[in-house]
């Protein structure tokens, strides 16, 4: 059931998918791993879309150097915990949803518990070791992982449905070296928004997901292209999973 305020708030999108679709969004719980460049636009768009429960996790403090791209955080937030800043903004932009913010580093001991009963994970991390952990949890819980990565004017995104699509380890078996990466905010905005769009389609069970395809965005050329990606039968993360019929539609 929706309040009058919710009906007004979501009116223009309920024209697309009706009460039933909006109800699906409301009942959903999405885990956003990282409240940085990708996590900012992804969580903001999920919040305004009415995803009922959003859990944001991050262990960092807002730094001045974050502000060119991490649009959840304002100049006044420098020095604050990103989780506190993120929760405040998301709750202000949509008071009708539940926002959880967890200030912790994701590691192998806590990842599965932190994820709880989430319906999907937005990969908004800045390193591959943690991404691989999220990938493992997504496989174990059989929930989608919405991957994104950015560097400079370049970005990549793909939607991982465990058992159906290649997992992150199938596509990127080895981690690149850690670096302080150059980036413009619009690249984060572009890729983070694609991730949010994928989450919304997945929850609604509509459209074609970015599955089995790695989208590569070149902002310098204003050109997006796709590379087909395939499961690796010998993948150390998902190789043992039986192939499923293509999913993407929520029960």
């Amino acid at each position, binding site marked *: 059931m929706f309040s009058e305020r919710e009906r007004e708030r979501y009116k223009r999108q309920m024209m697309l998918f009706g009460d039933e679709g909006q109800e699906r969004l409301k009942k959903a719980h999405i885990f956003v791993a990282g409240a940085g460049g990708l996590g900012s636009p992804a969580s903001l768009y999920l919040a305004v879309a009415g995803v009922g429960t959003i859990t944001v996790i991050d262990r960092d403090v807002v730094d001045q150097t974050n502000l060119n791209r991490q649009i959840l955080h304002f100049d006044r937030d420098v020095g604050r915990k990103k989780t506190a800043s993120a929760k405040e903004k998301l709750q202000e932009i949509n008071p009708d949803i539940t926002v959880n913010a967890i200030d912790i580093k994701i590691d192998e001991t806590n990842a599965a518990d932190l994820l709880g009963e989430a319906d999907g994970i937005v990969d908004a991390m800045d390193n591959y070791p943690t991404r691989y952990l999220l990938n493992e949890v997504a496989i174990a819980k059989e929930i989608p992982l919405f991957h994104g990565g950015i560097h400079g004017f370049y970005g990549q995104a793909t939607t991982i449905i465990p058992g159906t699509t290649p997992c992150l380890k199938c596509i990127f078996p080895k981690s690149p070296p850690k670096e302080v990466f150059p980036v413009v905010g619009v690249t984060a905005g572009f890729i983070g928004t694609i991730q949010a769009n994928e989450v919304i389609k997945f929850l609604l069970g509509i459209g074609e997901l970015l599955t089995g395809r790695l989208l590569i965005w070149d902002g310098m050329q204003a050109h997006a292209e796709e590379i087909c*990606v395939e499961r690796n039968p010998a993948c150390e993360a998902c190789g043992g999973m039986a192939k499923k019929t293509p999913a993407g539609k929520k029960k």
Partner: protein
Amino acid sequence: MTVKIRFFARFRELFGADIMTDVGAGTMFTSLITTIAKKNPEGYTAIFDEKGSFHEFVILMKNGKRIEITDAAKTQVMDGDEIAVFPPVAGG
């Protein structure tokens, strides 16, 4: 015969987007990329390690199909092939 080499992300910054190159019959994937990369020292070290092997994180594709690094040295390139070389993009 002509082969198209496509770089993405950081490798594209170093080498440009697409390189069309003439290759002799029997040219292997690794030797082709090595020859191209050697023209750009910074680019070379981004793709290859000090032993001249691909960095383990580099993704190689030929006509949309993944080529394992261990197979690249014995994979021939053919006329009209499209080759892609790129790193995983890590930032968030």
